[in-house]
């Protein structure tokens, strides 16, 4: 049985934040779950995907976050408890349904998880999604630790049903990827079939209907404000003349700082866990009781601006600070010492001195940047496109997209010139092609193509842009941990009852006239095919098909031979300098291949001018 399905109420187990959140949803009786995977949220959905295979929970990987939320909206309006999870930037994609779903509301509880990523451990920006709650008018809850995340999920479902509105549950990476002990609770039985009651004058958002629905939303926000005011999720700890207001993970840094500085008698803390609408009366009362207040929140001054406005309304003139040069930054994430020092400085308390050893004079430590895996098919495709374009002396722009292949922008491949969001490769290519005379070759992965590349491609065909789109089809969503996507053969997951969508059929149906299929591990043939596609005026698409080597390894589909370098090697190092596969290393200045890392793609063997790279007889297992 899946560990998150165990009944044992009262048992204490060690859980990752994302597991704790998934368990919370299970305890709340979630019956329907949708997602598009994205770090740091991915393990929530991964666990629910596994659970769905051994229970009556419905789970789906949707094609993108917008689709995911629309599917979820229907389930919730059929009365089912529904969870829809995504990373913070995913909510941008889902923002369209979000805004009007707030008008329409829900019947069964709907919780939308936004996993924010301060410091951008694995994201293109660090936007603060608390503003989505304000923008949409939806209630927002934010846990401060792993154990609380589970309890708060249950409260989020209850709140959603009570208010008949979706609730946004916001986490940050440090909640998702921390582990702690969690007490298991009862699992509420799932209700897996609902019924949709037709009610077009509340569901069909034509202007006349929406005008009424907006009135309803505003009323709901008032009700939510009363809930927030009374909620135990907004609480005050401690006592003293000084005040700290904080949210999320910052609470743990603040609590540790108070202990470290031994100032429990001087500081009280207001933790905001229900952060939209804010508990106005509670905050005003708290401010009235403080001599001076510090706001500790990662990201934007969301609380700070609201709290200052409240102080003004209440006619309070105490000093309130948060973001400033000397205190907290809007950048990145916080850490315990940073919070402790800011508290000490602001309230004029003795701080613990910094004690880190000096490291200024350490020898330079070589960087360890992430790299495409040994035998990754993307490396081969990038090399081939680059070689083809060089041989044709093209002045190229390479817009790329979001996935493992984004790493191709690093030298020596240097294939990636522009990326802003999922799907931007093909659409930005359209703009570059019109605005310049350069040749534009865009890269997109299979999952990203399904996510948001198709509309850009249709745009290219309709507006007749002169671009080449390379679809890197490795039959899996690799970057986020090998989730399925619509192009994947679900037999690989031992699952039946799924459809499968062929990329080349979509490309053809979109009206692309020049379509080339390549097998990237056949270097010469691929280069000559790529050249033809690059010559074509108009939209040409190259579909480069080869399974992700890491995934192939995990499903035991990897060929069983590795390569080695014979003494024919003249040490030109073309292999290292041009494709930089991590299976290479230098030993006494000679290039060698690590037989354990090598997966036998044979790309290097085909580019070695001396034919010095040969397969080993049979890999020792």
């Amino acid at each position: 049985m899946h560990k998150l399905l165990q009944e044992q109420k009262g048992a204490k187990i060690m859980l990752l934040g994302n597991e704790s959140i998934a368990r919370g949803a299970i305890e709340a009786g979630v019956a329907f779950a949708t997602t598009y995977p994205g770090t740091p949220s991915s393990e929530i959905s991964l666990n629910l995907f596994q659970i769905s295979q051994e229970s009556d929970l419905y789970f789906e990987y949707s094609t993108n976050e917008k689709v995911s939320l629309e599917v979820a909206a229907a389930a919730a309006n059929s009365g089912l408890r529904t969870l829809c999870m995504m990373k913070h930037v995913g909510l941008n994609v889902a923002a369209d349904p979000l805004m009007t779903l707030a008008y329409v509301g829900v019947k069964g509880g709907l919780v939308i998880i936004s996993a924010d990523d301060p410091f951008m451990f694995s994201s293109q920006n660090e936007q603060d999604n608390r503003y989505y709650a304000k923008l949409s008018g939806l209630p927002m809850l934010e846990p401060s630790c792993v154990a609380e995340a589970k309890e708060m999920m249950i409260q989020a479902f209850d709140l959603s049903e009570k208010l008949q509105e979706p609730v946004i549950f916001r986490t940050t990476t440090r909640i998702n990827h921390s582990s702690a002990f969690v007490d298991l609770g009862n699992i509420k039985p799932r209700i897996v079939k609902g019924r949709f009651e037709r009610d077009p004058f509340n569901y069909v958002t034509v202007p006349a209907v929406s005008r009424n629905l907006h009135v309803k939303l505003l009323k709901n926000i008032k009700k939510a404000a009363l809930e927030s005011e009374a909620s135990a999720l907004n609480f005050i700890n401690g006592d003293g003349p000084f005040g700290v207001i904080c949210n999320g993970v910052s609470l743990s840094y603040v609590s540790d700082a108070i202990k470290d500085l031994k100032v429990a008698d001087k500081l009280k803390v207001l933790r905001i866990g229900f952060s939209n609408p804010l508990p106005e009366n509670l905050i005003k009362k708290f401010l009235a009781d403080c001599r001076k207040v510090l706001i500790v929140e990662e990201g934007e001054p969301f609380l700070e601006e609201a709290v200052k406005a409240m102080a003004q309304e209440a006619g309070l003139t105490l000093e309130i600070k948060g973001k400033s040069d000397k205190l907290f930054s809007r950048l990145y994430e916080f850490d315990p010492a940073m919070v402790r020092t800011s508290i000490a400085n602001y309230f004029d308390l003795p701080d613990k001195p910094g004690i880190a050893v000096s490291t200024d004079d350490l020898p330079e430590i070589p960087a360890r940047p992430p790299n495409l895996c040994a035998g990754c098919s993307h490396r081969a495709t990038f090399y081939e496109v680059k070689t083809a374009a060089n041989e044709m002396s093209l002045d190229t722009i390479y817009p790329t997209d979001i996935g493992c292949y984004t790493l191709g922008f690093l030298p020596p491949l240097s294939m990636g010139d522009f990326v802003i969001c999922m799907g931007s490769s093909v659409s930005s290519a359209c703009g570059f092609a019109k605005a310049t005379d350069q040749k534009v070759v865009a890269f997109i992965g299979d999952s990203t193509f399904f996510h948001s590349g198709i509309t850009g491609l249709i745009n290219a065909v309709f507006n007749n842009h002169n671009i080449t789109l390379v679809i890197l089809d490795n039959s899996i969503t690799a970057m986020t941990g090998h989730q399925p996507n619509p192009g994947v053969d679900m037999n690989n997951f031992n699952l039946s009852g799924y459809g499968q969508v062929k990329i080349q059929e979509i490309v053809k149906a979109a009206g692309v006239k020049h379509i080339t299929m390549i097998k990237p591990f056949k270097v010469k043939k691929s280069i000559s095919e790529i050249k033809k596609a690059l010559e074509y005026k108009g939209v040409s698409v190259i579909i480069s098909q080869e399974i992700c080597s890491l995934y192939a390894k995990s499903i035991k589909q990897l060929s069983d031979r590795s390569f080695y370098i014979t003494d024919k090697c003249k040490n030109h190092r073309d292999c290292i300098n041009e494709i930089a596969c991590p299976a290479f290393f230098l030993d006494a200045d000679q290039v060698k291949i690590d037989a354990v890392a090598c997966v036998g793609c044979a790309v290097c063997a085909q580019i070695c001018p001396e034919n010095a790279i040969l397969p080993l007889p049979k890999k020792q297992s």
Partner: protein
Amino acid sequence: MKITRLIIVAVGGQGNLLASKMLGEAALSAGIPVHMSEIHGMAQRGGVVESSLVFGDAESTIISNGEADILLGFEPSETLRALNRCNKNSTVITSLAPIPPFTVAIGKGVYPDLEQLQKLIRSRTCELIAFNALDLAKQAGNIMSTNMVLLGALIQTNILPISADQIKTAIKTKTKKIFLDVNLKAFDLGFEAALKFSGE
């Protein structure tokens, strides 16, 4: 309860997350509160994996610069890179088996000299326990048991509020049967290796 802060740094694939989980389980059975956090964004693509474990009455799951009581490094250059997490009272345990980053493997960077590296760490911290954990893992029967070797050394220092028996129980519950003997042997070898340093 006293707070003890441990940072573990490793290269993707060295099994430090499993080692952290075992420490967490052992703490659970010992009744010691523990908060852990991990950063493993691109671990499978050869990047650095870092976990932090805070034992005792603290709530933070991460550790600021200078505040680690123990730094456990699975790879020497990564240990050195994380040295700013230590203070003069910290204990550092590191394997001396290098996994050169790809930049070094292709001649685009210089790997730090291991003697100098040890001297540097020793001069700035309270104690350095450094040995080739890979060799011991091989001796135990599986290069994948480096993490167990290092766990053994970690427990031997007695800085964590966790006993060898408690961690061994966790190893038993978290290890596949066929690897169990190797893992326990690797643990013992690491424990003994660290023991030699305590005499110094």
